[in-house]
């Protein structure tokens, strides 16, 4: 393509894709990432126009399905004007899809994939701005055992790649800290009745129940637990960090703790402004990952800018973009600072611990853990 700055129509198009679930069970979170990314692109459009490029967002729907994610990844790889991907929501999709990105040298920045394996395979294009499960899980366990003084813990997980991974990390750490694991049970995504498992919990009477999974199941689980007068503290991970949890569980969220890889967007002025812009543009409140979607896209665009600079204002190659993104060391996003280590993990990633004092999202922060 040609590249003569001023002309409106002569601009080279650069596309940034999102590849997240837009339909199916997790669409709300997937959608929020997409919208966050969209906002980031809109904010940067003008800047890129000056450089002679038209930014375009192409949202793909991975449906939370690995096969679909991979097929999308192949299509993304094929469209040479796409220079970066924001996604995925689910580690289970990110893991196979990233193999394809690697092949096509297409850089991916994940706002939310916490599974260790995502970056542990040493792929050059894979980056994430959130914390890892082997950070989040132990952080939660530490809080549970040392702060909440839980000695006997029951673990429930949703039998997804994410839920299992997190629960395993939590369990290992909690055991190491001397807690006794009374039982570990699984539920199925999509189920609405968890009374069976809860009856088992009730019989075992633990000090704390840890849930590895997403808020849709978690919320109902909490509610049904409280109905059964299981009033001990419950705890969960980043999957529970959503306004949906409060909508579903209502008052039952009290005495619930969760670790999150996402900081509270509303804590800073920048974050508040982001939330307002988001609301104004999409008529929706932000979700925990909205700002992470925004920041992921932000990092990506930052890297892209660097790459453009490095190639003297010409369209950079994908390899260049990937390298430039990985090279980022101190990007300041609205919720998190970003600097990648050699695996693509964010050095500044933190784990936050929240609880609900009242039935209102987001919860109150009661801890913050830095590596």
């Amino acid at each position: 393509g040609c590249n003569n700055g001023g002309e409106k129509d002569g601009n080279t198009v650069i596309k940034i894709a999102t590849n997240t679930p837009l339909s199916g069970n997790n669409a709300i979170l997937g959608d929020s990432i997409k919208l966050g990314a969209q906002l980031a692109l809109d904010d940067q459009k003008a800047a890129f126009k000056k450089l002679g490029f038209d930014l375009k967002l192409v949202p793909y729907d991975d449906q939370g399905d690995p096969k679909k994610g991979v097929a999308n990844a192949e299509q993304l790889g094929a469209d040479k004007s796409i220079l970066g991907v924001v996604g995925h929501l689910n580690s289970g999709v990110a893991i196979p899809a990233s193999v394809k990105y690697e092949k096509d040298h297409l850089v991916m920045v994940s706002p939310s994939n916490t599974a260790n394996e995502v970056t542990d395979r040493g792929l050059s294009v894979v980056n994430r701005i959130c914390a890892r499960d082997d950070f989040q899980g132990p952080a939660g366990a530490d809080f549970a055992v040392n702060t909440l003084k839980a000695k006997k813990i029951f673990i429930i997980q949703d039998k997804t790649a994410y839920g299992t991974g997190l629960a395993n990390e939590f369990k290992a750490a909690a055991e190491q800290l001397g807690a006794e694991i009374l039982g570990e049970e699984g539920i199925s995504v999509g189920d609405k009745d968890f009374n069976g498992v809860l009856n088992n919990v009730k019989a075992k009477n633990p000090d704390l129940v840890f849930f590895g999974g997403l808020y849709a199941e978690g919320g109902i689980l909490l509610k049904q637990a409280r109905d059964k007068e299981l009033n001990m503290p419950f705890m969960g991970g980043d999957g529970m960090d959503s306004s949906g949890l409060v909508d579903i569980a209502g008052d039952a969220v009290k005495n619930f703790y969760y670790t999150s890889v996402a900081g509270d967007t509303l804590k800073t002025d920048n974050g508040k402004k982001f939330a307002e812009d988001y609301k104004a543009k999409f008529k929706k409140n932000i979700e925990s990952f909205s700002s992470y979607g925004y920041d992921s896209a932000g990092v990506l665009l930052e890297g892209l800018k660097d790459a453009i600079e490095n190639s003297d204002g010409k369209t950079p190659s994908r390899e260049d973009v990937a390298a430039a993104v990985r090279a980022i060391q101190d990007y300041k996003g609205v919720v998190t600072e970003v600097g990648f280590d050699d695996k693509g993990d964010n050095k500044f990633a933190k784990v936050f611990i929240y609880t609900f004092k009242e039935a209102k999202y987001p919860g109150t922060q009661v801890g913050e853990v830095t590596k």
Partner: protein
Amino acid sequence: MNNLFAQVKQSNKLQAIFLTSYIVVTVLGLFLLQESVTAFLLILFSLFLLYKTNFPVKLKWSLGILILTLVMPFAASQGSAFESYMGVATLVGIYVAMALGLNVVVGLAGLLDLGFVAFFAIGSYTYAIFSTNQVQNFLKLDFLPFSGSSFWAFIIIGGIIAAIAGVLLGIPVLRVKGDYLAIVTLGFGEIIRIVFNNLDKPVNITGGAQGISSIPSPTIFGYVISDSSQFYYVVLVVLAIVILGVTRLQDSKLGRSWQAVRENEIAAQASGIHLVRTKLIAFAIGASFSGMMGVVFAAKQMFIDPTNFTLLESITILVMVILGGMGSVPGVILGASLVTILNLQVLTEVTNYLNQLTLDGVLNIPSALSPSKMQRMIFGLILILVAIFRPQGLLPARNKVVPKEDVVDQTVVDENQRSVSV
């Protein structure tokens, strides 16, 4: 116009001219336009046109193979979308083979199976477990895990293990009939999925929900097969074997037994057909195709987890069979191709296009209605419309018409001799 159409219908020569020019135009289209999904699809469509010609069967086959192995890959190879097209084509091949397998079970033998994906899962996991470190969790032998060069053997092994699973499932459940069978097989499919999802405890065999990653790519003579464009040929070969198998079996006494069992079990038995054995063979053959492709799928994806093998997947394969035309090999091939391409390529493209329009402000759609979320719905609508307008399937099965000279025995001249001397 009509006249021309009729003429084309009649004449081989006209058909040949038409087909050739069609292929040339679409190939050029894909070759030059590089990224045209339309051109890619149109090339594939040439296979359908080829099928519709009056050319002799052998010629059709040779041309079809030529288009698939050379013309299409070559035309696509220039564009950047090459791997992506080949990826779609590879998955199409995988699904065609599975649909053909299910067609044996549902279309020919009349056994409604809603858990077919289980066999696919069994094939996939067989290769995945034994070719990765996963196997060392429960079996510590020097030669394990197998390397990528074992892939070829695993295609066969996967097929055999799936076939055995088919038989093991079949033995108890074949007493159950009709829609009862549907639900039993559905249950079996779910059981397999749940078990695979949970076999990370007490011994980690399947990796549970976290699946198995880093599945090795196949190697042949030291050459690694990892691109879709390479897998494409692997799939083509397996598919060729599958198609050869089903078409030939269909035209044999086994094929007739399947149909007879489907049409009327009691009469079939009275004609000397072993009911259980016939059904079991159908199960086994259908399952083995699925198992073979499972191995290929695992190697291609390099990562598998149980979400690949849900009930929805079984239903989708069934949709392919019914939509194409039960019992009809060309129909099922068409059905599987269409559904796969629709799901992976066309719907994505259409929604992307609509999306672009929305983002550019041409359309104004509230985000709840965002086209990027409409894939399933459009798919649903297409299903309904096709079913209503083509209730027999896209290419319904036709009865073989046997020419007179094949049945009349020239050697018997005596008109009066009515007795049969056999």
